[in-house]
């Protein structure tokens, strides 16, 4: 490895070790790395926004004579009114435009993807069972999924007290949810360990060149 790369890798390794030192207790090395990351990330964001939005989406269109791009720019500048308490209310106009568009767009699409398609999928479990004349485990599993979905939804339904039959179904619903959360936990362990493995792969193989 050449000298510049060795130095750069060593800087990265020392910063890695500085962050790991937090495991023992909070200390100046960790605080240094943490604050440096905040500053550098903010700086990176400034650069990215400048070159990916300001130049191609504001400067270049105006330069090309597309004058109407002045409208979103003015609306954007109004956002900065937030910085002044007296004029803060002015920032509500661009905010309202943004919120109006993003909530309006969400209503039909979220309805479709998260509700209708999911209900469709649940009905499909039954219809495909008939269409394919499924047998054995498939039938049991599909029925279990359906019961599980209904029970868990009943658990989320708070307009009726969870007593009697509703209470029993809701309790089964919690059981189903617990299996789901358990599976998520199992996957989360794998996810977190992966991050550690990658860091140690870097320290051992890229920095120390062991093996």
């Amino acid at each position, binding site marked *: 490895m050449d000298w510049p790369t060795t130095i750069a890798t060593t800087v990265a390794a020392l910063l890695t070790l500085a962050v790991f030192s937090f495991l023992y207790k909070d200390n100046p090395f960790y605080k240094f790395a943490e604050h440096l990351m905040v500053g550098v990330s903010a700086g990176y964001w400034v650069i990215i926004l400048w070159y990916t939005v300001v130049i191609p989406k504001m400067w270049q269109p105006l330069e090309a004579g597309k004058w109407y791009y002045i409208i979103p720019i003015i609306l954007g500048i109004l956002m900065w009114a937030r910085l002044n308490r007296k004029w803060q209310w002015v920032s509500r106009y661009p905010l309202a435009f943004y919120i109006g568009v993003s909530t309006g767009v969400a209503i039909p699409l979220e309805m479709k993807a998260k509700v209708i398609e999911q209900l469709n999928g649940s009905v499909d479990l039954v219809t495909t069972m008939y269409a394919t004349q499924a047998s054995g485990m498939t039938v049991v599993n599909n029925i279990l999924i359906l019961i599980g979905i209904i029970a868990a939804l009943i658990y989320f339904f708070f307009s009726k007290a969870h007593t009697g039959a509703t209470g029993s179904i809701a309790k089964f619903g919690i059981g189903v949810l617990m299996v789901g959360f358990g599976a998520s936990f199992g996957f989360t362990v794998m*996810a977190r360990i992966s991050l550690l493995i990658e860091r140690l792969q870097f320290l051992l193989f890229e920095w120390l060149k062991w093996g």
Partner: protein
Amino acid sequence: MKLAEKMFAIDRRWVYLALGLAVLISLKIPFSIPIPISKEARNIYNFIDTLKAGDAVHLAIDYDPSTLAELHPMTLSILKQCFEKKIKVVVTALHQNGPAMAAAALDTAVARHAARSGEQMKNGVDYVFLGYKPYPALIILGMGQNYRIPFPTDYYGVPVDSLPMMKHIQNYDDVKAILNVSGTSATDYWISYGNGRYKVPLAIGVTGVMATDYYPYWQTGQIFGILGGLKGAAEYETLVGTPGKAVQGMKVQMVAHLIIIVFIIIGNIGYFAQRKKREQSV
């Protein structure tokens, strides 16, 4: 102090040390574990495998260094398969800390492909990197209308219209699928807005934390494949025939998981011993 009580009160730093050493040592010991391939991963591989040379896919790299460990191997493996099959790739990076990393991943994939086959993949011809724009939901919708709405230029500032590869690519109708490798909620937007509005086939590679949440979408067919966490990455590395960091990581995962299960057992033994003692005293 009795043994059971001691089990209940191990200092957290011993737990840290045990885990750290387990990972460190198992990284150094040469052994491997089999990587069985799941249907969720194979579906993605088969989909790309059946595409023709010259077809295009959209690879959405929506993660930052915090989840790079799990997701980078997926990105590199998918790029390898696409390059080998001569499939054109439109790449975007909708995480603010992601563009430099996505650009580096492309460079790595191009260099590896050149080393393997002697063939140099060209930016603008074999792949394009459009880069980053804020607010993923609206950007995803914008690209569905026309890639040029959010991205008049690519990451390097070159007008998209001047890139040869983009001449025949207007919007999602011109790509065969979107492959979203993500550590953020961008995946939800790709499902609701990308697949939901534009009906483009979608497959996802997500972190372990997120993976289980997307099985309902897999059953409905809103997504045609899932790569879940490092295991998903290792499966894809195996499928494309280049075992790398993810496959190496899986043996370490096994040891680390065993350590954690041992700690769960110790904690539970301690808990039941204490509970028994309490009940006896009552």
